[in-house]
């Protein structure tokens, strides 16, 4: 009896580690393959190996060689600019709006909440046709600020809901006692509610930053010339225009964007995971 339990346990552990090792390989393989490809000489992937025999930095140099169709540095800055402004914009608009909805009872509040709920269900994708048609006729092409405003607008409904839910869980007594002490609404917001909502603010910031990086639809409608591209469009075009022939260059570009983002993500993970679980599981 004792021994069967022991072998059972050992067997379970064996399968656990075997499975985890398998998952590790499954996750690392594509990533390491890309790293390898980015150092491989030549453009062809057929001869690519994870550990190249004659590693080269050529592909990284090519990214910044200033070719008309490959303005990697520019795309990088464009993406960074759009992501940062979208992040800031949505943090400001979302936290103020959530504050209003969480702490005040005003006319139209219920209807506005209904509207937000509805809008977060209709994908912003529904706006695609309008944007495509209007962008063509109005010449709204290539404007990063237009794109930023669209992204911020798209971030508002869902994130306001998350933030409002989080603020609802902060006891009202806190602001009431501050109010008795003579603090203004805005002061209560800055000094009490916002600091306490930090985990959810981190989630909003992450959504704001990664949203534009994950968008292909809206940006491909509005950004049409290579110098206005963001990374997703630029790299997609790079891969698809000459499929296969520029894959190693793409790999180098992919590495340069993935590493900083993945590292930041892993470092900040704790911050937003607590917000995510709090908001998400509450629904």
């Amino acid at each position, binding site marked *: 009896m004792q021994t069967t339990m022991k072998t059972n346990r050992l067997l379970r552990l064996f399968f656990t580690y075997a499975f985890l090792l398998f998952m590790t390989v499954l996750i690392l393989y594509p990533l390491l393959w890309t790293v390898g490809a980015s150092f491989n000489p030549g453009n062809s992937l057929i001869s690519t190996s994870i550990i190249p025999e004659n590693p080269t930095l050529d592909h990284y140099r090519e990214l910044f060689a200033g070719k008309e169709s490959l303005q990697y540095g520019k795309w990088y800055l464009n993406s960074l600019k759009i992501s940062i402004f979208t992040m800031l914009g949505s943090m400001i*608009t979302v936290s103020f709006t959530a504050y209003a909805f969480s702490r005040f009872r005003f006319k139209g509040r219920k209807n506005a909440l209904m509207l937000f*709920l509805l809008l977060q269900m209709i994908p912003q994708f*529904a706006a695609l046709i309008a944007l495509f048609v209007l962008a063509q006729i109005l010449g709204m092409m290539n404007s990063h600020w237009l794109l930023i405003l669209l992204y911020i607008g798209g971030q508002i409904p869902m994130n306001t809901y998350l933030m409002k839910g989080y603020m609802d869980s902060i006891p009202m007594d806190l602001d009431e006692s501050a109010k008795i002490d003579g603090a203004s609404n805005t002061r209560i917001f800055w000094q009490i509610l916002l600091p306490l909502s930090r985990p959810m603010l981190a989630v909003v910031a992450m959504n704001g930053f990664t949203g534009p990086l994950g968008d292909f639809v809206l940006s491909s409608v509005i950004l049409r010339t290579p110098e206005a591209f963001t990374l997703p469009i630029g790299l997609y075009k790079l891969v698809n225009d000459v499929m296969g022939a520029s894959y190693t260059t793409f790999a180098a570009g992919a590495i340069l964007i993935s590493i900083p983002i993945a590292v930041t993500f892993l470092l900040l993970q704790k911050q937003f995971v607590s917000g995510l679980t709090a908001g998400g599981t509450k629904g």
Partner: protein
Amino acid sequence: MAHRTIAPLLSIIPGLGQFYNKQWVKGLVFLILAAAFFIAFGDLLNMGFWGLFTLGTEVPRDNSIFLLAEGIIALIVTAFGLGIYYWNLKDAYKNGKLRDENFPVTSLKSEYQNLIAQGYPYLVSGPSLFLLIFAVIFPILFSFALAFTNYDLYHSPPANLADWVGLETFAEIFTVDIWRATFFDVLAWTVIWTVVASTLQVSLGIFIAIVVNQKEVRFKRFFRTILVLPWAVPGFVTILIFAGLFNDSFGAINNDILAFFGIDPVPWMTDETWSRLALILMQGWLGFPYIFIVTTGVLQSIPDDLYEAATIDGASIFAKFKNITLPMIFIAMAPIIITQFTFNFNNFNIIYLFNGGGPAVAGSTAGGTDILVSWIYKLTMQSSQYSLAAALTILLSIFVVGIALWQFRRTNSFKEGA
């Protein structure tokens, strides 16, 4: 006649009712607002509504699409105007009623203080609302309106006018053979894709979380870091990487892995069934870390007492798992699991970036792996079938909203929100 009847009747011209109630400043403000509204927006409203009804009568003078856009802006402006107008009537009625009951009307000072106090939430959420109208509501209304026109390549400005056609486009989706066939093919795959891919990523995430969370497992931090990597790397990068890995001719999966096991190359990109399989596997890879993280949080929050009590009662490991762990996970995570389904339903990026919704299907505007959203994208961007794309967008929105509303009614979040 009572004051509460006369005042609002006079306020049909904004401000007059307030004058009648002897609230001169307020009446003047309403009157000026009304005048300003018509001076500022008069042309827009006039032109907008004419355009909205006719969509233009003469080429090349009229551009149907501009007129439609203007018309929708006119609608939004009118809605605001009506809001203020309603406020004006209500104010006249309220103060008239106060006079009927021999109370003094509200003083300017108290009105002002009231406005400041009550206005605060409007003030801080105003910019958001404006942005929302500009960036989300207007485009959506515009897209929806297009569905009821015949706007396509052959009815586009400046050479031609578009026209209202009512529900014709919707009828055509279901009556024109090629459209109906494509629509139902795409819808069927969209549903299969949503269900299979979401179920895969959710069950994988939960399973791995349970495996890693076993007490005896060591190097937990290491494994957790590795396991969230697919979430940490930007999704578009990973999808494009996989597009390379799966490539029929040069991809590593065919050339290295399958060749190593002596398996013939598989047409991942050019065969519909294999493409679909590849997409589902990829989404599993991309989607499980999020579920994994959240499940880990839930598992750590289950009190140990529960398990101890169950052990004392003689429950086996599996009984504990089935009766404690799983129910806890599902109760806590139901909303998150459902969002995974709506996410995949609209998961444009993976479909489009992998192989453009391909392989192409003969005689159809949709490829073999196109889901509804990527099909709409193609109809808009490549074949200029705007009204068809818009009609499909409406059908898609109804579908998603319907399911989401049904789900929200089941969770308590909506009660909380109200």
